[in-house]
Structures are given as structure tokens and as C-alpha cells.
């Protein structure tokens, strides 16, 4: 039953397996040749990028599935399946393209590290996993690669495992992701239990059919029974299908929450900055964290089942994350952390977009964000590299002179992030704001605009403090431009940062979600002005927020040698700096729940089961034995008496109690 594989399928398979092969080869075959490892890794992803480009260019919009029967037991059929459709092709480009730049950049950034080989091995493993998510054609496979992404990010974040902070951050990232995955797998199980399939296409047709038929949630009513069992114990009652579809949606969303670091599972992302900076660029800006959003887009039809309220929830979570992260970014001083919170905030935008029934804009923003955020991270890396691993922006300053190429590209990235026309970020953010307006969700629109202002504010703060003014430390004053292997990727990434907004990505994605209002690709120049034609309010308010944010920042930070914001906003600044105490809160929560449970379980195990019950039985038996043994006094008289007593006992038992009445 193995279907014939199309050339595109082979290409996709090659793209997927190349990095794995590279990782395996690095692990087993290169001993100390770090250079060769790097080249292998870069070669694999470069080839992948070329193939992705080819796929993008030469295959049509028709989805192509390639299935290998991976597991088939009973009702559970899981194929190792690759799905090529516009969504995955776009993501392929993003992952391999941005990834390629980051790989190249890493060669420079990581040169001299004693675990160079391991670095590239892990990087390739990560690429493989990420591509797996992108290409997966069913939920199960997606989960498989989802987990693999988690573990490879664990390896990369904990790359410098000798540092306690890095080791802890890796652990935290993995565990937090696991919490999300917990929901994800339950969601998958529920979906499977309802529809009997995990394949996207099959699920989609089932949902569509359910929508067309009178019975709106054909599969989901079946879930009522086992769910009722949870809720009602012995009572079998029917849960309303709407509750069920919402629940499924939310459980699946939990996966995205973990990977895309949405509130309340956002805490791992800032800590993950302990990894090498290119890793931050790859994982925590362009790809891994985007996986959640990608997944939401992939399963949008499941979230969008009539009767489901999951999307509303998702939108609000996204919006809240965007706001929360932006506020926290205001008071960070570590250059990478600022970018990390900014990433959080932008991911919030994307998730919000999905929640606003606008997966297209979400993907659009994901794409542009991947480019400019990677650029920003790599730029930050360049700065850090130049400043001898100094990451505090208050110890930098004046870098624009010393590092011209970094400065220019970084500034472009910032502009794109803030959403300044005509940078790519403007278009994608605008699409999201427009979607909010279209769904008449004014609160979220206001929130979006406000966050846009905050974004401009903190990014301007970063740029003004780190690059402008005077050098505030020894390292900063001696900084000079990074080598070409690091700066050229910046330049390359600057191109999409400038242009990606208007090349028609939104239109390309729009084809996937025909239910929405797909924008049309009307040529580059037309696209350039499309936002203003399409929804002038969104564009206008967006730009207004940028201006306001920048003015505020300028007032506070031009030539500043310390942060004067805390004086203005008081306690909020402290809250923002201390990340609203989420880490402490979680730590407390975990210690009162899980750790207490563990303590109790351990205590019960040690004292009740192993101690009281087992040792008690043992002790009682031994005691009994010792007591019984006292009968053997050694005294013949006692023996004789016991013997006689035994005889009497036997006689009495048999003659009195067991008298042969029958």
C-alpha cells in the first residue's frame, strides 16, 4: 500500500533527511575536525534551501502528500507523512533560509569553542526536527518532531552546560515545553478518539463534512461519553459538543503555548538566552517559537469548528502575552533579553492573529518576523562578540561608529520590528491589526496598537543606548566590527527585512485559508501601498504608535547614561524588571504542589509502605518467631508438659469438636 512517491516528495524527503544525515555523520564520523563538521552542517542546510527554493518555484499550490506507513495498529494509523502545500513550502523557505544564514554566521561566532563539533551536530539535529514539524502531514508526526525540537533546543540552550545558568535554562525550557506538550498529546488523543484519524487532510474533510451535514460536530459528540466519565464519575451524562470542541482546541493550543512561549508558559524563553546567540536567533526568533503559530495555522480548521470558542481564548492569550512581554521588555538591560521579550511580544501578535480568525496574517508576520528578528539577534550577537561577551546595553554605547555594518543592519531590523513603512514588519503587523478591526474586536485592536507603541519605545531605547551616545565601558570603547562571516549574513538578512512585506507573501498564504479575505498579489509596488488602501485605520494607528513610541524613547534615552524610566512609572518599572515575578510565582507554585506531592509520596514510600507495612510485617514475623521460640526452654519438664498438652489438645479437638456425627 506504499503509494508512489512524486519527485516533490523525494525533494521534501531529502530536505528533511539532509540535516539528520549531517548530524549523524558529525556524531559518528568526524572526530576532531570541527571545520568539517561546520561545513557538513552548512552544506546540508544550504542544499535544503536550494531544494526548498526549487519546490517553492516549481510546484503548484496543490498539496502533495507522501506517506510511508510508520505505524498501523488497530484504529491507529500513523504514517511518516510529508505534506507539501503553500504553508509548508513557505515555512521550508523560512527555516532553511534563515537557518542557512545563522549556520554561516555560527561558523564565525562559535569559532574557537571547544565543542564546535557538538554545536553543529545539535544545530543540524534541530534543523531536522524543525523541518519535520513543517513537513508533517499528521498530528502524531507533528508531535514527534515537536518533541524532537524540544530536545534539540534543550541541547542547544544547554550548550554551555558548565554554566549553571545555562544548564538550568535548558532544563526549564524543556520542562515548560513539556507542560505544553502534555496538553498537545491529550488534544491529539481526543481528536483521534473523535475522528479516528490524525491525518490533517482526513481530519479536514471530516470536519468539513461535519460542517456541511446537519450534525455539526459529527465526531465530537462521541467524546461526550468518556469525558462525562471524567466529570461525573459514575454518572454518564452528555457534555455539550461545544464544550468538547473548545476543549480539544484548547488542548491542542497548549502545545503552541509551550513552543511559542505564550502566557502562562512564557517563562522559559528569556532564560533560554543562555544559549549561544546564533541559537537564540535560530530557535528563539525564527523557527522553534514559530512552530506554535505554524501549528495553529495547520490545524486552524480544528480550532474553527462551528461552536468552538477556542479561538477567542487564543486571541486573548496572544494579546495578553504581547502586552505583558512588551511591558517586561521595557526594563531589561541585557540586549538579548530585550530581544527575547520582544520575540514573546511578537509571538503574542501572531497568536492573537490566529485567534482573530486570521491565520494568514499570522503566518505573514511569522515570516517577516523570522527574517528581521534573526537579523536583530545576529546583530546583537555581533555586538556581544565585539564587546567581549558583554551583554548589558548600559555598558555599551557608541557602537555605531565602531561597527558600521552591524549598525546599519541592526537599525533596519529595528525599523522592521517597530513596523515602520516600508519595512516588512509594517505590512504583517498591519494585517493583524486590520484583522482585529475586521472582527470588530476593538479591545484587541487598541491593545495591538498600544503594544506597537511599546515595541518602538523599547527598541528605540535599545538602539539609542547601545549604539548611540558614548561608550560606557572599556569593552565598548575598544569594540570593532565583527568578521565578514558574521556580518555578511546580516546583510543578506537585511534584504528580506526590507522587502518581504510587499512581495506577496500574504497573498500566497491566503490561498490556504479561503474562508478569510485573501489579499491579492498585485505586484510589488501596489502591494507597497495596499495596507493604506485596505484599511487605513489600522495602518494609521500603527504608524502613529510608532511615532509616539519613538518620541518617548528619544526624550528619555538620547545620550542618557542611566535609565530614567523608573522614576516616571515607579513600581511598574520594578515589576517589569522583575518580570512580574512569574518565575518566583511558578517556583512557589511548583514547590507547594509538585514538590510537596513528591515529598509526601517519598515520605509515604519510605515510612508507610517500606517502613511500616513491609518492615512492620517483617518485624512482626520475626518477633513472633522469637516469641514462639521461647517455648523451647530446654527444660525437659516443660517439654513433657507441652507434649502432654498437645496430646490433650489433639484428643479434645477430635473427640469433642469433630465427633463423628455423620
Amino acid at each position, binding site marked *: 500500500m506504499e503509494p508512489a512517491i512524486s519527485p516533490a516528495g523525494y525533494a521534501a524527503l531529502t530536505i528533511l533527511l539532509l540535516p539528520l544525515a549531517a548530524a549523524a555523520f558529525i556524531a559518528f564520523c568526524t572526530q576532531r575536525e570541527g571545520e568539517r563538521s561546520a561545513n557538513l552542517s552548512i552544506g546540508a542546510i544550504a542544499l535544503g534551501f536550494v531544494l526548498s527554493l526549487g519546490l517553492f518555484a516549481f510546484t503548484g499550490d496543490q498539496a502533495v502528500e507522501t506517506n510511508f506507513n510508520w505505524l498501523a495498529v488497530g484504529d491507529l494509523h500513523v504514517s511518516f507523512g510529508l505534506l507539501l502545500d503553500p504553508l509548508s513550502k513557505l515555512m521550508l523557505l523560512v527555516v532553511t533560509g534563515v537557518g542557512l544564514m545563522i549556520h554561516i554566521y555560527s561558523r564565525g561566532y562559535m569559532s574557537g569553542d571547544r565543542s564546535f563539533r557538538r554545536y553543529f551536530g545539535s544545530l543540524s539535529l534541530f534543523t531536522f526536527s524543525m523541518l519535520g514539524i513543517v513537513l508533517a502531514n499528521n498530528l502524531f508526526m507533528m508531535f514527534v518532531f515537536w518533541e524532537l525540537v524540544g530536545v534539540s533546543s534543550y541541547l542547544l540552550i544547554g550548550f554551555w552546560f558548565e554554566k549553571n545558568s545555562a544548564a538550568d535554562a535548558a532544563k526549564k525550557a524543556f520542562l515548560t515545553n513539556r507542560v505544553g506538550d502534555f496538553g498537545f498529546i491529550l488534544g491529539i488523543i481526543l481528536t483521534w478518539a473523535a475522528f479516528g484519524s490524525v491525518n490533517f487532510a482526513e481530519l479536514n474533510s471530516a470536519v468539513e463534512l461535519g460542517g456541511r451535514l446537519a450534525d455539526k460536530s459529527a465526531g465530537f459528540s462521541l467524546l461526550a461519553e468518556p469525558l462525562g466519565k471524567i466529570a461525573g464519575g459514575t454518572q454518564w451524562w452528555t457534555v455539550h459538543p461545544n464544550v468538547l470542541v473548545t476543549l480539544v482546541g484548547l488542548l491542542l493550543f497548549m502545545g503552541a503555548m509551550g513552543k511559542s512561549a505564550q502566557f502562562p508558559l512564557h517563562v522559559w524563553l528569556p532564560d533560554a538566552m543562555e544559549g549561544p546567540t546564533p541559537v537564540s536567533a535560530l530557535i528563539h526568533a525564527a523557527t522553534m517559537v514559530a512552530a506554535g503559530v505554524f501549528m495553529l495555522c495547520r490545524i486552524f480548521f480544528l480550532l474553527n469548528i462551528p461552536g468552538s470558542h477556542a479561538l477567542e481564548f487564543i486571541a486573548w492569550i496572544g494579546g495578553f502575552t504581547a502586552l505583558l512581554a512588551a511591558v517586561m521588555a521595557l526594563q531589561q538591560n541585557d540586549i538579548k533579553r530585550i530581544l527575547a521579550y520582544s520575540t514573546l511580544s511578537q509571538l503574542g501578535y501572531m497568536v492573537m492573529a490566529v485567534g482573530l480568525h486570521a491565520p494568514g496574517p499570522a503566518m505573514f508576520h511569522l515570516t517577516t518576523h523570522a527574517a528581521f528578528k534573526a537579523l536583530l539577534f545576529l546583530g546583537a550577537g555581533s555586538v556581544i562578540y565585539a564587546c567581549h561577551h558583554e551583554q548589558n546595553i548600559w555598558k555599551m554605547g557608541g557602537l555605531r561608529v565602531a561597527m558600521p555594518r552591524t549598525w546599519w543592519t541592526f537599525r533596519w531590523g529595528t525599523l522592521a520590528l517597530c513596523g515602520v513603512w516600508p519595512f516588512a514588519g509594517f505590512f504583517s503587523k498591519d494585517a493583524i491589526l486590520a484583522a482585529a478591526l475586521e472582527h470588530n474586536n476593538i479591545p484587541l485592536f487598541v491593545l495591538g496598537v498600544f503594544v506597537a507603541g511599546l515595541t518602538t519605545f523599547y527598541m528605540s531605547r535599545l538602539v539609542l543606548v547601545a549604539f548611540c551616545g558614548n561608550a560606557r565601558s572599556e569593552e565598548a570603547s575598544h569594540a570593532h566590527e565583527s568578521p565578514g562571516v558574521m556580518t555578511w549574513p546580516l546583510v543578506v538578512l537585511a534584504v528580506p527585512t526590507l522587502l518581504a512585506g510587499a512581495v506577496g507573501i500574504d497573498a500566497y498564504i491566503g490561498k490556504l485559508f479561503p474562508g478569510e479575505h485573501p489579499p491579492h498579489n498585485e505586484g510589488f509596488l501596489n502591494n507597497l501601498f495596499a495596507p493604506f488602501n485596505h484599511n487605513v485605520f489600522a495602518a494609521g494607528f500603527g504608524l502613529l504608535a510608532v511615532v509616539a513610541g519613538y518620541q518617548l524613547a528619544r526624550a528619555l534615552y538620547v545620550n542618557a547614561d542611566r535609565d530614567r524610566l523608573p522614576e516616571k512609572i515607579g513600581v511598574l518599572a520594578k515589576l517589569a524588571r522583575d518580570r512580574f515575578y512569574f518565575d518566583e510565582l511558578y517556583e512557589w507554585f511548583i514547590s507547594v504542589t509538585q514538590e510537596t506531592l513528591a515529598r509526601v509520596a517519598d515520605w509515604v514510600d519510605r515510612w508507610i509502605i517500606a517502613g511500616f507495612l513491609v518492615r512492620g510485617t517483617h518485624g512482626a514475623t520475626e518477633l513472633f518467631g522469637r516469641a514462639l521460640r521461647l517455648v*523451647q526452654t*530446654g527444660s525437659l519438664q516443660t517439654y513433657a508438659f507441652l507434649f502432654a498438652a498437645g496430646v490433650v489438645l489433639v484428643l479434645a479437638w477430635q473427640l469433642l469438636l469433630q465427633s463423628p456425627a455423620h
Partner: protein
Amino acid sequence: MNVGLEHYLTVSAMLFCLGLLGVILRRNVLVIYMSLELMLNAANLALVAFSRFNENLTGQMMVFFIITVAAAEVAVGLALIVALYRKRQSAHVEDLTSLKL
């Protein structure tokens, strides 16, 4: 009431119990051994009585063997007691407690 089997058996049983009492209560090994002889004699009495009232000489034959065996047993037993007495200078059962627990 005519003296019958019951009466002999009663005597025998009582004698048996007396012997047992001696075994349990006396501390001198020799006396204990004598009490054991009482018990055997009680059995002999019962056997002879049964033999008589069941009209069957087998019981008496049994007594014959019991007496013989008892004689042998007594010989060995007394030799043993003598040997022990030589070691311990006592024939008291309380002194026989090197083996216990």
C-alpha cells in the same frame, strides 16, 4: 454392678494419668522414668483387659513384647542417665538446659 471391662480400663486410664502426672511434675529423671514405666503398665493393663473381654490372646502377646521392649529401654535409659550423671553430678531435669531456644 459387675466388674467389667470399663472398670479395668478406668483403672488403667487412671494409672496412665498418674504416670503422666509424674512425668510432668517430677524433676528427678529417674522418677520420671519410673513414671513412664507406670504409663506402660497402664497400657499393659488395658491390653490384658481387652484381651480377656474380647477373647483374643493377641493383646497378651502384645503385653509380652511391651515388657520385653520396656526392659531393653530401661536398660539403655538407665545407662544413659548414669552417663549423664557422671558428667553433670545431677539427675535433675532443671540442670539439663544447655540445649535450648
